[in-house]
């Protein structure tokens, strides 16, 4: 029986479509209405409110928490300043990714970590010799994402902190009414946005506040279907879709290193030993086998294909996550990778995808072929290689200029 998030009394009232998904054991709204597009446009043009309680959450405390996290994570967490957040992944000793998430430094010796998979047991493996305590606070803390251009203005209405100064990937505590919340300027939409962390008992009060103040800013509750479109546009990978947890795969081929899933930039290689360091150093030297790239799928060719069958072009309204073969050329003789997720991007008016391809084919602007099935027949159309990040508005990272 799936778990109900603390926001369930509200979300269940609002979810008139009855479109629910299972997310980490929770009931999670896929889309509140029968179509998700309104929610998508809220993310991009006003603000969307998303229940992110199902994320796993850990509080790491103790005088060695920074060095402990530096040992576990591929990133040197000891360099993270108080009040800052970082995104990174963590690896097994073979340098294969176990999970990814954010690490927030709330104090000299206090960190908050989010993850997609349960990681308590994994983190606890590495505590020997460290003065550190790993606390799984997943079911004590609720999470809400407020994402979109008007998100800052909404939160400013009822938070006592200077959000105009809160930088991208920074975090702060804030007082709301008579309780405290944590706000981090993070999110999974690739837009201006915040994630709010709150004790369960105050969760509904916070929801109601946001909904009330959000009305005049066109805030809407949004579900995972809309989120999925935004995260593909932003080029943000998803565990179990674009890569697999190395602890859960049955075969080695399904494991990935950070370099192979576009997270090489999160790796700080030259420092004290951390999990996977030796393997990652070796891979850095020898080169990786795979790369995640963005693909811009040629719309005119798709139109032509459908036209041949006397059909108008069809494209799913929601993001997809099937594995689609990628070829070197239209003969389909040589497969060099596979797309893992994709979507029609309403804001870019492009048909885009994230794909894992052999590293040697990852040059930007090079042309590959992606399989398209029309009228039960397999064809290919041209897909142009790009960075995974298709959409990156300036407001995501900027702060208002003070007058």
């Amino acid at each position, binding site marked *: 029986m799936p778990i109900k998030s603390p926001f369930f009394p509200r979300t269940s009232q609002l979810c008139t479509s009855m479109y629910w998904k299972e997310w980490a054991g929770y009931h999670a709204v896929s889309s509140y209405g029968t179509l998700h597009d309104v929610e998508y446009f809220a993310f991009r043009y006003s603000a969307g409110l998303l229940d992110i309680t199902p994320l796993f959450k850990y509080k790491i405390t103790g005088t060695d928490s920074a060095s402990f996290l530096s*040992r576990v994570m591929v990133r040197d967490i000891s360099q993270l300043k108080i009040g800052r957040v970082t995104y990174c992944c963590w690896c097994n*000793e073979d340098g294969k990714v176990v999970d990814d998430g954010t690490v927030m430094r709330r104090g000299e010796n206090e960190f908050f970590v989010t993850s997609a998979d349960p990681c308590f047991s994994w983190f606890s*493996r*590495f505590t*020997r*010799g*460290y003065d550190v305590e790993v606390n799984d606070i997943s079911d004590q803390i609720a999470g809400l994402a407020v994402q979109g251009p008007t998100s800052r203005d909404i939160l400013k209405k009822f938070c006592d902190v200077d959000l105009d100064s809160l930088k991208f990937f920074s975090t702060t505590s804030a007082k709301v009414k008579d309780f405290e919340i944590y706000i981090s300027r993070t999110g999974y939409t690739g837009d201006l946005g915040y994630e709010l962390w709150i004790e369960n008992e105050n969760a509904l009060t916070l929801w109601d506040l946001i909904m009330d103040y959000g009305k005049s800013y066109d805030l809407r509750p949004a579900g995972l279907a809309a989120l999925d479109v935004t995260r593909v546009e932003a080029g943000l990978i998803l565990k179990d879709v674009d890569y697999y947890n190395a602890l859960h795969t049955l075969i080695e081929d399904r494991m990935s290193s950070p370099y192979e899933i576009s997270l090489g930039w999160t790796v700080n290689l030259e420092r004290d*030993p*951390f*999990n996977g360091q030796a393997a990652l150093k070796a891979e850095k030297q020898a080169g990786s086998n795979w790369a995640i790239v963005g693909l811009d799928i040629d719309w005119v060719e798709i139109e032509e294909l459908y036209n041949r069958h006397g059909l108008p072009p069809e494209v799913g309204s929601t993001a997809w996550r099937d594995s689609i073969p990628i070829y070197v050329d239209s003969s389909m003789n040589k497969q060099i990778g596979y797309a893992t997720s994709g979507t029609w991007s309403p804001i870019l008016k492009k048909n885009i995808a994230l794909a894992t391809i052999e590293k040697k084919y990852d040059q930007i602007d090079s042309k590959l072929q992606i399989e398209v099935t029309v009228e039960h027949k397999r064809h290919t159309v041209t897909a142009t290689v790009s960075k995974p990040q298709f959409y990156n508005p300036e407001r995501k990272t900027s702060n208002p200029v003070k007058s």
Partner: protein
Amino acid sequence: MNDKYDIIVIGGGHNGLTAATKLAKNGKKVAVIEKRQALGGIAAGEEFHPGYKSTGLIHDTSTIRMSVVKSLNLKDFGLNIEEKRPNTTILGSSGECIELSDNIEETCQEISKYSNKDAEAYKDYRSFIASIRPFVDGLMNEMPPDLIKLGTKDLWTLLKKAIGLKRLGNKTMLEFLKVAPMSVADFINERFETEFLKAGLVAPAIYHSYTGPWSSYSTLNLLLWECASANSIIGGPQALVTALEKAAIAVNVDILTNCGAKQVLLDDNNEVMGVLLADDKVVQAPIVASSCTPLVTFYDLLKPNQIEYSLEHSIKHYRSRGTAVKVNLALNKALSLNGLSNIEYARTGNSIDEMEKSFDFVKYRKFSVTPILDIHVPSVSSPELAPENHCVVSVIAHFASHELEGGWSEDPKKVFGQNVIQTLEQYSPGISNSVVGMEVLSPQDLEERYGLANGQVYHGEHAVDQILTRPIPSCMRYSTPISGLYLCGSGSHPGGGITCMPGALGSEAILKNR
């Protein structure tokens, strides 16, 4: 002391000294660093009561390998070895005595006082041991083959082992394969009928192991010991240490005592670059050979992030539970056991089932009320260890849990010491009145004094898995996943006891790899 060496050996016990000397003989510049003031580790003699000295933590020098003695010319450095195992008396609780000696005929005569059948069985037993000895010695005195690379040489080694097994002859081969995995109780019960004799025979199989006579595979422990036990060092373990020290100095090994290692230092590539000493001095060396226990080597001498989880996990689950307490007694007169004086080595046990019951206590974090005693009276052959006409009795008493319920404070040590004396009273009535000094070393004391993890004297239990891939598969050929770090202590093949073999084979591995 220099600040740069080819190799630093951590620990100046018999294995550390053996490794260092072998390496130096091969032209390496070697330093041995020893935390304690005295060299020798568990082989070092100690004054435990004013005027009374022991000859080392463990008594048994019979498993010393002559190949090491010869290759290090230890006889030239004053080592006096009799190439026969010492006489050992098995004591029964009703005054019975059987003296086991190297002479099988004499021993059989002794046994026939109690049972003719057992005397015959003993003859067969000894001839079985003699026939498997070449094969077992071959296993224990060579480096384990590299089962991962499995090169031509390794295949050849395996083939030789297989041929060696076959050459035992079909009857012996099949018997060996049948009995090795058995419990030692089953094995001995199949052959003998006299209870106290059976107890005395199985005893070496359970010493220092988390094993009762009814534990499976315990026969293997017995066979390994029986095949190895063939010598006797005059003067006990301390005499070995004295000779090893001289041999080491003769080849210019720098021996540094009162010099603990705080940390093995690794460079940016996680390769050994030296040792940080307890006084924060750094000594450089590209190779470090640790004769410490695997747990100390990987947990205490390296930072937690320097070992991968899989290694940490294997080491964590390497079973290393101390089960014995050492009791040193100073007596104001000679010891007589079951009416006999001048006994140097003796064993008690009374019956296999009593031993098993004694073992039961450790499972529940307690200690035995009537412990099994491994008795050594070193002052019989070395009267200088005690004042004139007095004597030193060294007892290794099983079983006592290393994680005693309530902890090893002074009170339980006193109680256990009394249990030992009460047990001795059965064999030596009135002994309690002649005790003038007594030292009880709990597993916790052994850990503190000698760095033995959990007081495990063998640096890890002898159990079939921990014998075949000792200590763990990734370290079974003395090298470790840390480049430049080697093991050369009892935690490596062929295991604990005074053999000097882990030190010798560990140094061979270093010489081969570099």
